[in-house]
């Protein structure tokens, strides 16, 4: 079985999972935003969702204001915007279609059925008042597809690439959400009565599907730095940066070991360096004050890792610049945070 997976197909499996995870994440964020935030101060603000994906330039080129209608249009229904919900599902299906000969029939039918179903959604299904219901359907269908993959996808080399796409995207989404949410919470713009604060942090945790897990570990209160540390370093939380990082490392190590792919060494070194730095960071008491820089560093490391995988397996020309950037960024972060 070794050596028969086309580079192009490995890349499709990687992106199939990334688009699924991305769609799931965006649907979950929008769902939390429209359901749990009702009635809260600042709940009418949609601008933070635009900030989440750092797409302010593109967005404000097309819309004057980030309100429910414009954000939903841009991030949910607009097929021209490649990061919209529907565009992500469509891209996932396109990748699955290319991979159809390799994935299980069950994976294909679940995704195809899902796609056909959301094509029948109309404007009103995505109106602010029904958005939460529609996002819930999308979210659960993404979960289903990931679950079907887990139960049916043959574990040759295609699985590690699928799984890498999934957890790299998950780490990236966690980092982005963490960054934007903490900036919002800490800006102090909102009402700082303790009961409001409690509710804000609980919504934040819910948008990571981490509320009850956090409660089990920290049964009283919501100290902001504890919430942040939980979402970053808790190795039992499937969305934490540390959990995803370790899974990435384990998966690349499997490519290197079980599948004897020597080109996995560089990406493996990259993720190991990242995890070392992350462990060191967990000892850093000052982390909370550098949260934005930290998140930039995480996202940059994931971009570089994706480039490493592209060079090692997907047949992309390797750019020396990105290699240089890798080492440089890693050191600069440590310097920055330790200074």
């Amino acid at each position: 079985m070794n050596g028969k997976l086309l580079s192009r197909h490995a890349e499709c499996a990687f992106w199939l999972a990334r688009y699924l995870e991305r769609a799931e994440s965006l649907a979950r964020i929008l769902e939390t935003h429209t359901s749990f935030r009702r009635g809260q101060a600042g709940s009418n603000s949609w601008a933070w969702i635009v900030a989440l994906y750092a797409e302010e330039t593109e967005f404000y080129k097309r819309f004057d204001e980030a309100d429910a209608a414009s954000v939903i249009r841009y991030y949910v229904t607009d097929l021209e915007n490649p990061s919209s919900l529907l565009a992500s599902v469509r891209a996932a299906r396109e990748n699955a279609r290319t991979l159809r000969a390799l994935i299980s029939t069950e994976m294909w039918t679940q995704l195809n059925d899902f796609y056909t179903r959301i094509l029948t959604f109309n404007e009103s299904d995505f109106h602010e008042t029904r958005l939460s219901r529609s996002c819930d359907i999308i979210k659960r269908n993404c979960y289903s597809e990931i679950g079907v993959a887990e139960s049916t996808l043959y574990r040759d080399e295609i699985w590690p690439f699928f799984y890498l796409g999934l957890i790299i995207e998950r780490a990236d989404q966690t980092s982005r959400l963490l960054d934007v949410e903490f900036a919002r919470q800490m800006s102090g713009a909102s009402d700082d009565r303790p009961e409001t604060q409690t509710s804000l942090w609980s919504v934040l945790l819910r948008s990571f599907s981490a509320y009850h897990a956090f409660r089990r570990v920290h049964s009283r209160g919501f100290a902001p730095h504890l919430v942040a540390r939980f979402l970053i370093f808790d190795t039992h939380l499937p969305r934490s940066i540390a959990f995803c990082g370790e899974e990435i490392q384990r998966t690349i190590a499997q490519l290197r070991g079980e599948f004897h792919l020597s080109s996995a060494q560089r990406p493996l070194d990259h993720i190991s360096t990242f995890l070392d730095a992350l462990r060191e960071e967990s000892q850093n008491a000052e982390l909370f004050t550098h949260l934005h820089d930290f998140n930039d560093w995480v996202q940059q490391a994931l971009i570089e890792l994706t480039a490493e995988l592209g060079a090692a397996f997907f047949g992309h020309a390797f750019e020396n610049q990105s290699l240089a950037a890798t080492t440089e960024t890693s050191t600069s972060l440590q310097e920055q945070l330790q200074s």
Partner: protein
Amino acid sequence: MGTVTSLHNPALDTPLENYDAGEFYCELLGRPDNPNTELLALYERLQGIDLADLAIRAEDAKRELQMLGITFTIYTERDAVDRVLPFDIIPRVITAQDWRKIEAGVCQRVNALNLFIWDVYHKRQIFKDGVVPAELVFRNSNFRPEMVDYDPPLGTYVQIAGIDIIRDAAGQFLVLEDNCRTPSGVSYVVENRHLMQRAFPDLMVGFAIEPVSDYGVRLASKLTEICPSGISDPQIVLLSPGSFNSAYFEHIFLAREMGIPLVEGGDLFVENDRVYMKTIAGPTPVHVIYRRLDDDFLDPEVFNENSLLGVPGLMRAVHKGNVTLANAVGTGIADDKAVYDYVPRIIRYYLAEDPILPNVKSYICREEEALRYTLENLDNLVVKPVGESGGYGICVGPKASRAELDECRERLKRNPANYIAQPMIDLSVCPTLVGDDAVEARHVDLRPFAITGRETWVLPGGLTRVALPKGSIVVNSSQGGGTKDTWVLRGDAK
């Protein structure tokens, strides 16, 4: 055996109550003067089904096709639409005796065509002996000078053939067309059977039907037989033009059934006259390519230089004997509609046998006599362009309007060599569910698939295409055609 009427439940709408095959041969009932008694049991079983139930099952099957994404793609100016090829729930059945004849006839034809192609690219004896006019082949754009003196493994050029067969009013099978390049449709044969087994298992009970699901395994082993010499465990791949191709579903199907990589031109490259595919472990040698790409696009170094779908240097690797293409390049000289008329003579010439399956009479319009006849009888003839496929450009005389006939006449006069004409054949019919409340006679054809390595094997049955519009005889999917499951009854069955 009970009579047909004894099974009628008068409370129900029986599907074949008002069925009328007219003057055509019916694949279920035969002819009134020569009824097909072997299929009476199936007829009775169909009659025992409530029409409404039949419609529900048809709807289930359609939904399943959609869900499985068994689609072909139609391109409009704006976008690509995945369309399900309509599936008719009432099967077309071929008796063991009829099948033996079709099978033998298809094998004979494929063997003769392979010998013909070898001769054309080597000794050219058939021209010297005056059996086929040389210019018919050499002026054909599908003749590939690059193939002269090339020796394909086992002498096989056409590994995969689809032979289109029809049945006239007397019940005789005739060959309508040979497809020796990249015939498509075999995926529907297998998928239709699977669909039938799920939607209509009770209809099949008690009938011994030849299986079709081992096509992929058979094909993979035939393709192994033709691999370059010295290779014991060849790497076979399926080369597709890509996911925008209308037959992409079939490419997926075949790659899966054979367990081989589905590659596109960009996944392959040639180095030192050897073909490699780009994998996550680096370049991996490729030995046999089942290509679903026309000759023109295969190798920009040799053919269409603008082709982005092919692999530069591929033909060098072929000539060095490092890779085998299935089908070989240049087989288009054998399935040309102008060569078609000579196939019975080709069979006699190489095999010294009479053709088992006769041709439909055709008039080759490049010949003066035939052109005159065609122009005079345009309203009684079917005129077809020689080089087209997919049912495009066909003029069905008896059904054409005045304007269409005039237009056809103009095209004929402008470029007679591009056309052949055939008499209107009374295609056989098969009971077909129309809408959700009627079973009516619709015309069908049959495309059996033959695969050839050392020997030829024919998939039992083949693709039955059905022309869904009332009275239509054009069965192509692009022209409103659907498909049916095709049963070949086993010899030992009643």
